[in-house]
């Protein structure tokens, strides 16, 4: 990752910062993207260890390791926050978004490079604060959903939840600023000739995600601040005794929380489009449908939040609306799945590691998606709410599909980022080990949930022992594959073969493949002119 600095030199613009100032004061989209990825990988080790501990406890009935149930609840909470806010979002948006949106649209950097720097360091600070909160006065044992009254000052006295709230505020500001940066960059800094209807689908995905962030995070921030004042300044927004309502928090949280899950998956959709089109050596089928399907998913994603609240006591007509609205999202999502398949149909496909992960994504996202369609039904949710069926569903779409998207992006773009290619045999082993591992962890959790096992418990009635054991065994395989991945990263960066500017051949048509590998510190200093050329999909 340090190598790309050396390949500069064409424009007499060789002087760029060195040493620690290069990173701490960075205004370079590539360096900032790199820092996000390093943060994401580190956070993945922390969040992944937490899930390992949880599954170790759940491997057998009885309590083996975590007799302190508050700490167990803190692990559950920390695992959720870390994976969502400090692993997936930094990798997909902060990492790949920063690296490749400017490269793909022919821009020399983001619109606000210094604000980009602020966004990164806010996330780093937020991560530190979250870890601090976990070890402060018992830690936040509330789940990532932080529902009051459990999260208020009566039931979580001490500073842990307050520090957690401040951590989320920092991360939230980071995301809002980053969203503004991406929107302005994509709208204003596309090279001549690159209309929005010709820009790569990955750029569309970051654009849609940025709007979701811009509109959803302020609502979370509002709710968090109301919780903070309830906890510390005597307000009673979420307390019935003062005229408030705990369910109000749920509305505010999930108004953010549902778009949040689309924030997580839509950039992965963008990466998959790039990878599928490159390795099938065909342009994406139905480009406009794909772009506007993402827009539609993003838009409808804002009006379905209460499907997370079907058992809160909402009236039946309200729930009926949310059932109908939630089901609607299946249509644009289906359009995307079929379009990817239609892209591959008639193609000439090379199954390099990125493509293997992309195919894995398509299949496994559908598995997670159909359980989502099932969960959309309030009547069925009576059986499934707060059971492991929900845990299985969201891990399929987030921990499996989104992570497959991250790996696809890594293998696709690491040559461009570092100048070195990954070891291809090890990458394929990584794919299969991870595929087997995560399916072993999460598929049996459907059975546990259907049979009635609740979430967020450290021990369970003996009947649930069998599938819990299987799921935990899967964790060992997944962890081994994660270690293999870190070895692959190290091996790539230290001994990977030299990457060509375009290692992927005729299918790779987007602008990042026209610059050297590794990409120089400054790229597109002269704007490329794409007027009249083929669409850069």
């Amino acid at each position, binding site marked *: 990752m340090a190598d790309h600095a050396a390949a500069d030199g064409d424009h007499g613009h060789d002087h760029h910062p060195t040493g620690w100032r290069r990173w701490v004061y960075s205004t370079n989209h590539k360096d900032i993207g790199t820092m996000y990825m390093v943060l994401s990988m580190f956070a993945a080790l922390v969040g992944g260890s937490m899930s390992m501990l949880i599954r170790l406890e759940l491997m057998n009935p009885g309590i083996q390791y975590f007799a302190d149930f508050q700490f167990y609840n803190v692990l559950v909470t920390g695992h959720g926050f870390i994976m969502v806010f400090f692993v997936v979002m930094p990798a997909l948006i902060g990492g790949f978004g920063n690296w490749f949106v400017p490269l793909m649209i022919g821009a020399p950097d983001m619109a606000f490079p210094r604000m980009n720097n602020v966004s990164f360091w806010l996330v780093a600070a937020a991560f530190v604060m979250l870890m601090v909160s976990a070890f402060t006065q018992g830690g936040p044992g509330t789940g990532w959903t932080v529902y009051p009254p459990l999260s208020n000052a009566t*039931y979580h006295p001490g500073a842990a939840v307050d520090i957690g709230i401040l951590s989320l505020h920092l991360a939230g500001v980071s995301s809002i600023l980053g969203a503004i940066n991406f929107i302005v960059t994509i709208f204003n800094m596309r090279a001549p000739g690159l209309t929005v209807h010709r820009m790569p689908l990955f750029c569309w995905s970051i654009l849609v995600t940025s709007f979701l962030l811009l509109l959803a995070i302020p609502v979370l921030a509002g709710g968090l601040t109301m919780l903070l004042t309830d906890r510390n300044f005597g307000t009673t927004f979420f307390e019935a005794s003062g005229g408030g309502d705990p369910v109000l928090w749920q509305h505010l949280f999930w108004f953010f929380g549902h778009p949040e899950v689309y924030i997580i998956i839509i950039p992965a959709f963008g990466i998959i489009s790039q990878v599928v089109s490159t390795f099938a050596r065909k342009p994406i089928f139905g480009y406009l449908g794909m772009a506007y399907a993402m827009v539609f998913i993003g838009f409808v994603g804002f009006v379905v939040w209460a499907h997370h609240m079907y058992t809160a006591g909402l009236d*039946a007509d309200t729930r009926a609306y949310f059932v109908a609205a939630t089901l609607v999202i299946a*249509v644009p999502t289906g359009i995307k799945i079929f379009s990817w398949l239609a892209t591959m149909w008639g193609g000439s496909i090379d199954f390099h590691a990125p493509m293997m992960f992309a195919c894995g994504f398509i299949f496994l996202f559908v598995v997670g998606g159909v359980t989502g369609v099932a969960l959309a039904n309030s009547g*069925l949710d009576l059986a499934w709410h707060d059971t492991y069926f929900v845990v299985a569903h969201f891990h399929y779409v987030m921990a499996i599909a989104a992570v497959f998207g991250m790996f696809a992006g890594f293998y696709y773009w690491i040559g461009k980022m570092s100048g070195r290619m990954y070891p291809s045999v090890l990458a394929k082993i990584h794919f299969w080990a991870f595929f087997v591992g995560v399916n072993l962890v999460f598929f049996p959790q459907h059975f546990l949930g259907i049979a009635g096992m609740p979430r967020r418990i450290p021990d369970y009635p003996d009947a649930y022992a069998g599938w819990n054991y299987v799921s935990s065994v899967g964790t060992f395989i997944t962890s081994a594959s994660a270690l293999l991945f870190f070895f692959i990263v190290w091996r790539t960066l230290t001994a990977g073969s030299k990457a060509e500017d375009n290692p992927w051949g005729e299918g790779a048509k987007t602008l990042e493949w026209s610059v050297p590998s590794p990409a120089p510190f400054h790229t597109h200093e002269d704007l490329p002119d794409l007027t009249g050329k083929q669409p850069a999909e």
Partner: protein
Amino acid sequence: MLGVLFTTGGALASGRAEPWQMWFQPAASPVMERILEFHNIIFVIEVGIVALVLGLLCYVVIRFNAKANPVPSTTTHNTLLEVIWTGIPMLILIVIAVPSLKLLYYADRFEKAEMTLKITGNQWYWTYTYPDRGGFKFDSFLVPDNELKKGQPRLLTVDNPVILPAGTNIRLLFTSADVIHDWAIPSLGLKLDAVQGRINESWVHINAEGDYYGMCSELCGVNHGFMPIHIKAVSKDAFAAWVEKAKKNFAAADGDARVRRAEAGPGAAAR
């Protein structure tokens, strides 16, 4: 065998999960029966979609890999195809939505309830009140492992089960004395949050006498996993007789048990 799987839930015992269970617990209420029926429709659709996508993916991988198809086509549009794969999912969603909404309204409430049970969530036990049987109430705590009798299921056994009459339409009212809890009985298709400052309402009709178990289903603190629910459904006559005894037993005694358990400290109830 599949028929048994889909209609009864596949497990032989009633009211709780069996080892290695992969399906719902057998339905013990009309709501749960309808949930199972509706789920059968959904399940067929889910499996169909996954099979279709997997099949297409496998076909594409084999037929269009670089060796088998060295020259890629350039097709990027086919309006008919796009209309089909937009329209058919919309039809499927309507097929899902109609029975889904019927189930939603059926499960919501029952107008002519014959009795009412009020359920209050506490950290970390349930309180049951019988408002139209004189208003007596009692607490229901998990029985810890070291106090279980032979045959009593671990983490599901309570000291005072809820006694309810089978074959009766029962209105259920839920609230909480502290944080949000959730009263859930999988075999009855029942689940609703118990929230401080609100009274949530649902209903249940337990088809047959027997034991039905559930667990708290909303994170409520350290002992969230250790406040189960045990309903004992008895005949209407047995219920009436029990009510008479309960009015005397529980009128004065509800203070002591709670204090003794709470003082044992977090986690003690589970060990």
